[in-house]
């Protein structure tokens, strides 16, 4: 790793306020391949529930529209904008970056099918 990258990575973790486990120069994590079939999409979609409700159905009074029943295309577009940093966000830009485009498409398809 080049020194200026190392410096940037260090700054990033300070700014993020998260003690990322990865030391500068440590190998990149070997994440399990995305599980896009079977219950994989549902398992990923479950992580949205603390803010967006079980299966994308929000509790009353939510400050945003439910994810359940939204078209796959719209969810992909919005999450893509969060990921690219082109849509105003408080937290979703940071969370969207944790998912690959294929994972986002699978999550979006799952929510489209929810009622």
């Amino acid at each position, binding site marked *: 790793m080049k020194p200026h990258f190392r410096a940037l990575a260090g700054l990033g973790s300070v*700014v*993020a*306020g*998260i*003690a*990322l*486990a*990865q030391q500068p120069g440590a190998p*990149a*994590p*070997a*994440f*399990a*391949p*995305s*599980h896009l079939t079977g*219950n*994989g999409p549902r*398992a*990923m979609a*479950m*992580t*949205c*529930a*603390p*803010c*967006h*409700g*079980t299966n994308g159905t*929000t*509790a*009353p*009074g*939510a*400050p945003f529209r439910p994810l359940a029943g939204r078209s796959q295309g719209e969810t992909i577009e919005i999450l893509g904008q969060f990921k690219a940093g082109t849509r105003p966000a*408080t*937290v979703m830009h*940071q*969370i969207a*970056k*944790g*998912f690959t485009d294929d994972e986002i498409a699978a999550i979006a398809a799952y929510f489209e099918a929810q009622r």
Partner: protein
Amino acid sequence: MRMDRRQFLKAASAGVAATGLGGCAAAPSAPKARVVVVGGGYGGATAARYVRLLDPSIDVVLVEPNEAFVSCPLSNLVLGGFKGMADITTPYTGLERHGVKVVRDVATAIDVDKKQVRLARGAALPFDRVIVSPGVDFMWEALPAMGSADAQARVLHAWKAGPQTAALRRQLEAMPDGGVFVITIPLAPYRCPPGPYERACQVAAYFKSAKPRSKVLLLDENADVTSKGPLFKKAWAELYPNLIEYRGNSKALDIDVAGSTVKLEFGDQKGDVLNVLPPMKAGNIAAPFITVNRRWCEVDWLTFESKAAKNVHILGDALQIAPAMPKSATMANGHGKVCASAVVNLLNGETPNPAPTLVNTCYSMVSDKLAIHVASVHKYDINDRTFKAVPGSGGVSSAMNEAEGTYTMNWARNIWADALG
């Protein structure tokens, strides 16, 4: 009484349903399997609900001593006077509607060989798999004078939301203006890393309006604020000037309860109200499954099965954390889902998800309206067999803001509904 067609159909279908139930009662079809969940906090309640959601043919019994769920997140707002206990309390009846049998009792032991959970009052509960979500218990031995019940009744932790939350609020209300409220913070890891610093904000907000000559003093065994440090320090300086004092590297060695004094390595600190957060460890019911430092439990992260016992799954704050994984409510909720999914798979002879994901979002209210967050996304590393934060994801708020205050309340409503039905 005349019935129209719609009413007739409704009554008829109700009759069918009743007949169906009657048939079941006459010749009960044995459930596929029984899962006992010990502890109805964020992790356990979520696991209980999601096992039922994913496979309604599995019997789920939740053992929980408390009558209702009281949320630790938002409980600092009770100390600030912005919320009441009712606002952070949710009954367990929602879980019962999802077919979870809630047993109000205390689990006294988990018999791994006999596969049953022993209870303080009721008969032992047999299980095929048990999910233990024990939360934390306190290492009082680190503060010798706090060992007695009398001392613990006078110097509160309020780190398990419930009667202590209300009692600490009463102590703050009774404190004279000009008093000092002292919070001691143990070395990380402990439950809810940003919690003590949020508490300082909430109590300072109360002092600012009601007791402006008073002060909050944080005595932190850690060298510096352990979570959202720059954001908290900015909130303290801008919202509560001269109301909050922070001292890092300040380890509490003992408490002089009668003298209302914290004994430190260097000197003593008197306070008008003491709030002592002792070092923490896995909740006592999980003691046989502790494998790290006599404090925490290790699990297989794909299933949350204990490394110390088969068919025993452990969740939440009791775990030896994966790198960068906080002991938080959202994380325990995520544990509950990965675990519930794996338990359902295993009881059905299926392979658990090989690529589980956890997302953490922790909001802290720095006033009655303004909030800050820390977020992270964690995925399973197949070489190291642990969760790791996804590089480039996660982060904290750019600044305290009102939108996230709204999102905090939204988070609470949704996660309570997600965990408790």
